[in-house]
């Protein structure tokens, strides 16, 4: 899992924002994103990775809910994640470059469409931090803002499909500190902010091990426990569940 991977919902951090710096002083967005690749391991290290398996936890502290997270990703664009929460059950999501789906005991199976599908497929691309040039039609540094006392470059990433994403990169060390986006879903526009911290080495890459997301007044904390690169992942791990396949079959009719 890469440092900027976003799981599910997010955020709205109460971080103080400083005044934007003059545009002339700003590095290009491309430079900021390339620097992130460089400081988290470099192109060579990213190029060696073809699959990954991640485990961790997800916690909704206010509700007292905690779940185990397992996620798999593989080239070119396969992704599957599941969170198992006591009292809620299993929440699954997946994509394969063409379809994006979700399934849970609460809401059942569904096929994602429109902007939501585009966003999931974007997140499902393998190594998106490394291959960002293939995913975004523009990246623009908007200015400098201060987050928790750290000066950051604020970069707007506009994908080829789906909603734009704003990211804040530490001006000093190049690491991603915050991401903000509004996901368009059938249940409404979900504005989220996610803060990335606890960067540590996993193999040759440096990865954020804590992601704190806020949606409305709710806080979600994700903690990464293990990351395994080029792990052997069963091929059927990326297969959609039977209920999702049934929906797809029905949609074909």
């Amino acid at each position, binding site marked *: 899992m890469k440092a900027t991977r976003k799981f599910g919902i997010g955020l*709205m951090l109460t971080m103080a924002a400083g005044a934007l710096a003059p545009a002339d002083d700003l590095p290009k967005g491309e430079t900021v994103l390339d620097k992130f690749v460089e400081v988290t391991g470099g192109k060579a290290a990213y190029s060696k990775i073809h699959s990954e398996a991640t485990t961790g936890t997800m916690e*909704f502290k206010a*509700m*007292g*809910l905690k779940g185990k997270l397992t996620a798999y990703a593989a080239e070119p664009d396969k992704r599957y994640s599941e969170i198992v929460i*006591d*009292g*809620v*059950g*299993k929440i699954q999501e997946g994509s394969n470059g063409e379809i994006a789906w979700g399934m*849970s*005991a*609460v*809401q*059942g*199976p*569904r096929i994602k469409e429109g902007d939501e599908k585009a966003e999931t497929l974007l997140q499902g691309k393998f190594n998106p931090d490394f291959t960002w040039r293939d995913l975004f039609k523009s990246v623009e540094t908007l200015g400098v803002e201060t987050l928790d006392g750290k000066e950051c470059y604020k970069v707007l990433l506009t994908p080829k499909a789906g909603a734009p994403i704003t990211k804040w990169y530490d001006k000093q060390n190049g690491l991603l500190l915050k991401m903000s986006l509004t996901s368009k879903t*059938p*249940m*409404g*526009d*979900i*504005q989220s902010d996610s803060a990335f911290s606890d960067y540590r080495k996993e193999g040759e890459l440096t990865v954020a091990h804590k992601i704190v997301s806020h*949606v*409305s*007044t709710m806080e979600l904390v994700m903690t990464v426990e293990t990351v395994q690169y080029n792990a052997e992942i069963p091929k059927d791990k990326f297969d959609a569940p039977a*209920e999702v396949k*049934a*929906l797809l*079959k*029905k949609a074909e009719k």
Partner: protein
Amino acid sequence: MPVLVLGVLGAIAVPAQRLKPAERSANVESFEHVWATVRDKYWDPKLNGLDWQSVRDELRPRLDAAKDMEESRRILNEMLSRLKQSHFGVFPGDIYHDLDSRESRDEPDSDEASPGIDLRVTDGHAIVTEVQPGSPAAARSVKPGWEIVRIGKTDLAPVISRITKQFHDSTLLDLRLARAALNRLQGSAGSTVQIEFVDSADKKVMLDLDRAPPRGKLVRFGNLPPQHVWSEWRKARPGVGYLGFNMFMDPEALSATTAEAVQGCTDCRGFVVDVRGNPGGIGALAMGLAGWFVERQGMQLGTEYLRGLTINFVVFPRPEPFRGPLAVLVDGSSASTAEIFAGGLKDAKRARIFGSRTAGAALPSVIERLPNGDGFQYAIANYVSQGGKPLEGIGVIPDEEVRPSRRQLLEGKDPALDAAIDWIAKQHRTQESK
């Protein structure tokens, strides 16, 4: 942990007593806490255009000059009343005694075991509506339709009278009455409760009934207390499916039961979902359950508004949903998610509703204890059903009002279910004649 509650508990008078300095200080602290909570957590950050700072500036001097607890409480409730919303109120901490706290039982440290009786209060009388098969009550031949006049040392008539007086103009009345009696039946497993009944021959019967663990699986959901949860399905009549469950909890089990029901009823003429007495649970499960009975993509049950977030309660149809006539049974003890489910399906014209008006308690609300010891209830969201009306304080009004009488219960009838089955049969006949 704050207590999640349903209902409005404000503005209940207690005798006045002069304030001591410490009480005055606690009242000021409570005032500031209530004011700030509304400012920070009310779902509309603009507070419907209300100048909240002006409200504080106007009322705080009056609070400082308040002579007793009652006046302080009245000022806090006046502040909250400016919001013009239900589920906001400040009330004396002891108001729960007659409602649903453990304090209302003879054994205050007891748990949720019961003799296996469900009841409703009808026309001022607590009437047994269901006796759980295999329960201690069933073993002693207690029957639906029997009246309960006393539980332990408590005569129910004055309790019913007090609650009726307090909630006479509230949709919550039926729910409060039923819970007040049911709570008194509960206690620790293995303990005994003495109940005085009036049986089918109108004779008084005194029984000592054991309390047994509640039906179902003990399920934990986050910070909420563990709950016993069950779901079942059967054919209520040949060709009519019936799904019943006690809470919108344990999604995997409810989903499995519903899947089995729908798949086992593909040839059914109609389906009945029974949410009578169902207090709700996980809100999103209303959408998940509806997905088993909805074919149309994009159908919505309603909309929930939180601070900075609007959630559309969209139904995602299952691959093979039940497409035939759908009836939903409700009553005054159907609350929260049960109302969202029934109200949304009614508004979308996917279901016909049978029974009596629901509790009108759809908003998630929280009760906190204030520094001065009073309770403070506030809602953290607003919910509007798909028909454009809030459920709060209104409830779901059935298409067919059906309230079981004592006589019908004694005869073993379930009039709401019978009405639903009749309607399904009529739909079937109409369909066949086309």
